Each structure stands twice: as structure tokens, then as C-alpha cells.
């Protein structure tokens, strides 16, 4: 369920199809995920999961897999 929600957040924030969202999807690996979109994505994750990602998390969230890892720190289960 959480993975589905996170995929939707990624899809909506980056404007990409859900099928592209795999663990290996990385920041700057597609034109849609640039520094501008990254902040939209981070704000959307904060809202959707009711968390406040720290600056370190924002830097480390360099892939879909990393996003899941970071959210686990906030007790979000995948």
C-alpha cells in the first residue's frame, strides 16, 4: 500500500508513467527528475506521508529505492 502511494507521488510529481517507477529510477537519470522537480517531489512526500524530511534526507533521496529507505526511518512500512 505504501509503495503504491509512493509510486503515485512520484508519478504525479515528476509527470511520468507509473511503469517507469522502479527501485533503480534515479535523480537526473530522466529529464523529468531534475532539481526543480525534486523539490516538488519532496514537498509531496511530506504531505502524503505526513513527515518532514530533513535536508540530509532531501540530499540522500537520489532514487526510488532510497526514498523507500528514508521513509522507513519515519516508520513508514513497505
Amino acid at each position, binding site marked *: 500500500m505504501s509503495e503504491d502511494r509512493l509510486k503515485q507521488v512520484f508519478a504525479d510529481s515528476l509527470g511520468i508513467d507509473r511503469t517507469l517507477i522502479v527501485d533503480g529510477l534515479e535523480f537526473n537519470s530522466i529529464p523529468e527528475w531534475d*532539481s526543480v522537480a*525534486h*523539490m516538488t517531489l519532496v*514537498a509531496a512526500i511530506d504531505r502524503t506521508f505526513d513527515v518532514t524530511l530533513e*535536508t540530509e534526507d532531501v540530499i540522500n533521496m537520489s532514487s526510488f529505492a532510497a526514498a523507500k529507505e528514508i521513509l522507513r526511518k519515519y516508520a513508514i512500512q513497505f
Partner: protein
Amino acid sequence: MAQLSLDSANTLEYRDTPWDQRVLGFNTNEILSINYSSDKSLSELLELFEKECRSRNVLFTVSRFDASRFELKSMMHQHGYYLAEMSFQLLKNDMQQSEFSSEKKLNLKLERPREEDFGQMQQIARDDFHFGRILEDPNIDRQKARARSFHWIEDLRRQEKEFWVIRQNERVIGFWIQQVEGASASLILAGTAEKASMLALPFWKLCLQDLQLRNVLEVRTLISSANVRAVNLYRHLEFKFERALLGLHRMRNQ
């Protein structure tokens, strides 16, 4: 700066470029402007310049001209210049009407650099900057181009430009170097460490907000057209694209 001229309407201004010479190991210069009244006089000016370069053993010349100067582009190609890069001159002249706050608040603070920060900035410039007139020149060794970026930081420091940095875990992860004169600011060089490049937007907003609070009305900068990430960043920040500039270079045999 020096000038060659056929008459008052046909002039070519140029300068030595010790910052290029330092890393390339041979004499270099830059054409700053060319004014001409005909194709014939343009050709004569370029030949005069060529003579001057050969007499001083200048092996490498750079220049930047408005991309819409089609005849100049054509003539320079005929005189052995090649297209090395293209840049955009950008302008934001609605600083006081702009909004620079972000939905996501981060713990980023603009600070003046400490002594130990300059080495870190040099490393970022050398290792994480991939675009620029020399970095993009296919005839320049990449390591030498990187060394030029490294030294540029110290050059700007000696020129007493205004430096700002942001840190994470006490390491510099981004820097911004500008010159502010009254209500105008010129952004000379800015960037983040590669690993922190996702912070570009909030970092840029922080710097622009600081300028806004200082009552700066307009900000100008120059970026490579090949740096699509930067192009999109400035587009998002609603900078206007004032001009496209072609970087025409010439490498001469020894």
C-alpha cells in the same frame, strides 16, 4: 586590452587571457569585439589579428558573439574558427515583484566562506562542473579545462568578488559568486557539489531572496546552452533569455 583598426568604423578589440595560458601552457587571447563596415574589411581585420597572434606566438583564441551575427559567424569559420560552445545571457529584471519562498522549508543558511572553504569550492568547480567555454571545447584536454575551473575560484577571490556558501555537515555543498553594483547584480559563477545538486532550486532561491532584500532590481548571468539542467532551473525562476552567444575558438599549430 588592445585594439587593431583599419579606421574608426573597423576595429577589433582583444586581450590576453592568462587564466587560459596558465593551464594550457602556451599564449592565449580573447577577441572582445569586432566592428566592421563590410565583409572585405572584416576579412582584413581577421587577417590583421592573425598576423598579430602569430607574431606573439598566440596559439589559442576564444571569442563570443551574438548568434544572430550570421555574416560574422560565416567569416570567422572561413578564417579557421570553430564553434566550441553556445551560451545564453539571462536577465531577471522583476526581482522586487518575485516570490522566492518555497513550499518545502530546508535548514539551509547562506554564509560567507571561511578560509578552509575555498579549497572545497575549488574541488567542486574542478570535479563537479561540466559546462563552460573551455570545458566544452573539444580541442582542449579535459583535465586542463578542469584545472582552469579550479583556479578560477582563487582568481575571483583576488578580484574581491562577493562569495556565499551553503554547508551540510560542515562541508561546503554549494557556492554563489557575484558582483553587486547598486541595484544590479551579476552572477559570475555558482553551483553545487554533484551529490547535492538536488538542492539547486532552494539554494538559488535563497541567494535571489537575499538580493531582493538588498533592493537589487535585476540579476544577469551567463550559462551554457548545453547545461539543460541550468536552463530549466533559470526558466523555472523566470529569467528572460536575452541573447544567445556563439563561442568561436581557434587553435593554431605551433
